């Protein structure tokens, strides 16, 4: 269980799920990641659970790291994922992507490929239609960084 998300070093917590009831965002890197999360949630502290973020434990090529974010949700009009935010704490611009979904999505399941400049923690925050927020994070070791030329 990772209570403190350190910026440096390889925090390899293979498959470890964050099991605390609420994830204190004070543990997030202070390069603006906490501010981005709070801006996304309107100040509401996100809860653990429901969000799964799949990334390789070790990325050989930081230019193209496969990422999949899934959120456990029926995706009905009454209960669905509205938005998902992806953050890479150590990248030159931590905000990686912002997804808007709808009940037409059927399932909250989006994949893409991202650049990671060095080993770091990637965070996913989901905004639910009921106004709640859920968050998870994964650490990735990057052997060859992908943000500079």
């Amino acid at each position: 269980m990772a209570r403190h998300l350190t910026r440096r070093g390889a925090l390899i917590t293979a498959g470890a799920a964050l099991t605390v009831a609420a994830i204190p965002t004070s543990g997030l890197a202070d390069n603006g990641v906490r501010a981005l999360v709070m801006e996304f949630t309107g100040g509401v502290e996100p809860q653990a659970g429901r969000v799964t973020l799949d990334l390789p434990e070790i990325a050989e090529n930081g230019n193209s790291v496969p990422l999949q974010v899934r959120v456990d949700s029926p995706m009905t009009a009454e209960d669905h994922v509205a938005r998902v935010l992806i953050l890479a704490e150590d990248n030159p611009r931590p905000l990686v992507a912002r997804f808007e979904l709808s009940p037409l999505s059927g399932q909250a399941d989006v994949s893409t490929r991202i650049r990671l400049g060095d080993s770091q923690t990637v965070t996913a925050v989901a905004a639910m239609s009921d106004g709640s927020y859920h968050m998870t994070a994964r650490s990735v070791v990057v052997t060859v960084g992908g943000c500079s030329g």
Partner: protein
Amino acid sequence: MSTPTPRIRLSATSVAPGEVIDIRTMVSHPMETGNRVDPDGRAIPRNIIQEFHAEFDGETVLRAGLDTSVSANPYLQFKFAPSHSGTLTLTWRGDDGFEVVAEEPITVI
């Protein structure tokens, strides 16, 4: 310079009601971050795709706001559960007036 043709793969284009379609897309684009310099030391300006929009008969299925941390030739895979037959429109928009639009007919049997 011609606009690139996006690569789109749908798991099905004819589905039963309630069935979920898997959609994979990729479009050629350098997603230049603005951090790189050319061999003469001049900064290469940022040039990225900023938005991807999948809509079905006017309703949003997925909207993706992308920034410089998304890899070149951006790949996006997502799900879609059509409620009726119609047209799925995929749009990519980016810097320097970049715009690519594709349409996929979907049938619900």
